[in-house]
């Protein structure tokens, strides 16, 4: 913008012409952001979000039977109502010398497990982070949450419709393992560890971020990390464990490194954003002397995404793949061997094992989505597809999951929206009971779910 103001009228006309072309994106980028120095001071924020849903749920399985007699013991209602709230207190500050800084918290309702009539049992911190930086040097982000490069900078993940589709709140209707974990880069299982990241200024439309976290835990380590646990009772609860004979500890990542490069620009009526990056980590070493003990492999995953926006349309996609699994293996024994792998819990990006003669499928995921905005209405949808090793007992084959979400949002007033959303998802893996997590079973090798929900969203 300053270039538009400098010099004579003739020079101004030339500068404006230069600033308008995509080839002079640097000038255009500077101008479009308005690089004046904000007034020193502090601004406090107390934003929040509350959602209420009415949902019709059809999932399989939704019944439980007595293992011995086969008699039906549990059934599920196909109609439910849920609600969920988040609070976002924080502040932003500018020092007289231009230093920019601030901090944010995300506080959520503790959900699930409360007996009828007891109401909510409390709140919990989902994320807590801070930042400081300067216009010329970029910024450092520290803490848990949007401080890792992948979560903070990825593009192509379309969830701005309904409650967010498979990345929204509607999956909370589902029972247990029927939940497909659609988007590992936006999930709590991969972004909650405490870390530090550096984020550059934007040059010619490009900016980059790199981050590092030594251990896979947050808030000073896991809350259940007593010495009794560390010494053998439950070492998986201690994020600083990096050597163990206990297989339950072997799925933690160590030395987690993330890097992302992003480009954003406009070309005539098109807005374009592209990102590419990498997640790598070390592992917890298996100290077991047992013959056949296997080692987990550190994470090594690349991802790329893009978004194109034109008029009211936005189309985006994201793809990722590499050495990783989705979900912790839930070991029950002290030794991780090729035959002792047992149990499964749906989760996010975790180290994969190399099991001799077993299933060592690398992770491959992709998703596509689109939204269209017409006045107060937003129409949107996305599809995701995932292949992963899943349960790594010998020869169970890969785990496959996919899902689709469609939604309509009516922005009735600032901060008030009504939305209608449809979700369908499926997870399958041969020879694995996806409800109990046990290998070698022909039961529940496929679980699926459909949800139709109508809800209100309040934001302040």
């Amino acid at each position: 913008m300053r270039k538009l103001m400098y010099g004579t009228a003739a020079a101004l006309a030339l500068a404006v012409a230069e600033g308008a072309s995509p080839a002079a994106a640097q000038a255009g980028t500077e101008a479009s952001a308005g690089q004046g120095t904000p007034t020193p001071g502090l601004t406090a924020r107390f934003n929040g979000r509350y959602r209420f849903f009415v949902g019709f749920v059809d999932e399989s399985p939704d019944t439980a039977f007595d293992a011995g007699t086969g008699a039906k013991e549990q059934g599920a209602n196909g109609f439910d109502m849920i609600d969920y709230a988040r609070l976002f207190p924080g502040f932003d500050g500018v020092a007289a010398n231009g230093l920019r800084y601030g901090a944010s918290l995300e506080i959520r309702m503790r959900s699930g497990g409360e007996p009828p009539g007891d109401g909510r049992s409390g709140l919990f911190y989902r994320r807590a982070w801070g930042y400081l930086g300067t216009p010329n040097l970029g910024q450092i982000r520290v803490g848990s949450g949007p401080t890792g490069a992948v979560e903070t900078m990825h593009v192509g993940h379309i969830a701005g419709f309904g409650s967010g589709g498979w990345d929204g709140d509607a999956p909370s209707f589902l029972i247990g393992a029927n939940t497909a974990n659609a988007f590992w880069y936006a999930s709590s299982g991969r972004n909650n560890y405490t870390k530090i990241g550096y984020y550059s200024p934007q040059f010619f439309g490009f900016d980059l971020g790199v981050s590092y976290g030594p251990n896979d835990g947050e808030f000073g380590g896991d809350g259940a990390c007593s010495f009794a646990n560390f010494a053998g009772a439950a070492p998986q609860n201690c994020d600083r464990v990096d050597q163990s004979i206990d297989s339950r500890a072997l799925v933690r990542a160590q030395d987690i490194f993330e890097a992302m490069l992003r480009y954003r620009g406009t070309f005539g009526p098109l807005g374009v954003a592209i990102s590419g990056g990498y997640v790598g980590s070390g592992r917890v070493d298996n100290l077991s002397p047992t013959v056949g003990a296997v080692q987990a492999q550190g994470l090594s995953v690349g991802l790329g995404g893009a978004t194109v926006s034109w008029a009211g349309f936005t189309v985006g996609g994201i793809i990722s793949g590499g050495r990783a699994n989705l979900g912790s293996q839930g070991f029950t024994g002290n030794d991780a061997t090729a035959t002792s792998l047992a149990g499964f819990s749906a989760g996010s990006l975790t180290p994969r094992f190399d099991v001799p003669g077993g299933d060592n499928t690398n992770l491959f995921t992709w998703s596509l989505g689109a939204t269209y905005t017409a006045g107060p209405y937003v129409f949107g949808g996305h599809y995701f597809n995932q292949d992963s090793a899943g349960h790594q007992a010998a020869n169970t084959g890969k785990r496959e999951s996919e899902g689709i979400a469609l939604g309509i949002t009516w922005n009735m007033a600032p901060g008030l929206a009504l939305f209608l959303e449809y979700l369908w998802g499926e997870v399958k893996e041969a020879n694995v009971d996806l409800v109990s997590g046990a290998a070698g079973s022909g039961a529940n090798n496929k679980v699926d779910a459909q949800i139709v929900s109508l809800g209100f969203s309040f934001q302040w």
Partner: protein
Amino acid sequence: MPDAPHPTRAFRSAPACGVLLLVCGLVVAGCGQGRYVEQSEYNDPARSSQRGSLLGNEGVFSIFGGSTNRNAEQGAGALGVNAFLWRGSLDTLSFMPLVSADPFGGVIITDWYSPPETPGERFKVTVYILGRQLRSDGVRVSVFRQVENRGQWVDVPVSQDMAPQLEDKILARARDLRIQSTQTAGR
């Protein structure tokens, strides 16, 4: 005697730290030419919850007299015009002093601004946001220019390209903000 550092941990840490330092060094070496990336340009759930909020884009109140937020002039309250164009306009013109910013009528009026390099001329900009939709014709800019002549400010013509180019800059920023908003994670 404490245990020796775990050799694999030391080996794993060194490449990551080295890359991190190298990147930081490269960026610092090339510093001074870039644009500071605002918090709203990251996938930040705290910021994404603010878009379209009852209280406008940011903030409940400011203390110590100032605000980091270029939108603070709009105050707390609902917007009557497209929020992306509103925010894009304020971001684009943030280095100019504002006289008024009406989020209901969609009008932003700057005060006269003299670039430090050319103190003998000054500019004033008026931005009109024409509706609730993010459209290429949804913003209209008027630019006024004066030059100093014997102690008096005299109106002079402005290049016909200046206002349309400012409109393009505002639209580009608005699109950037909207791209970020479509990536809101629901969880």
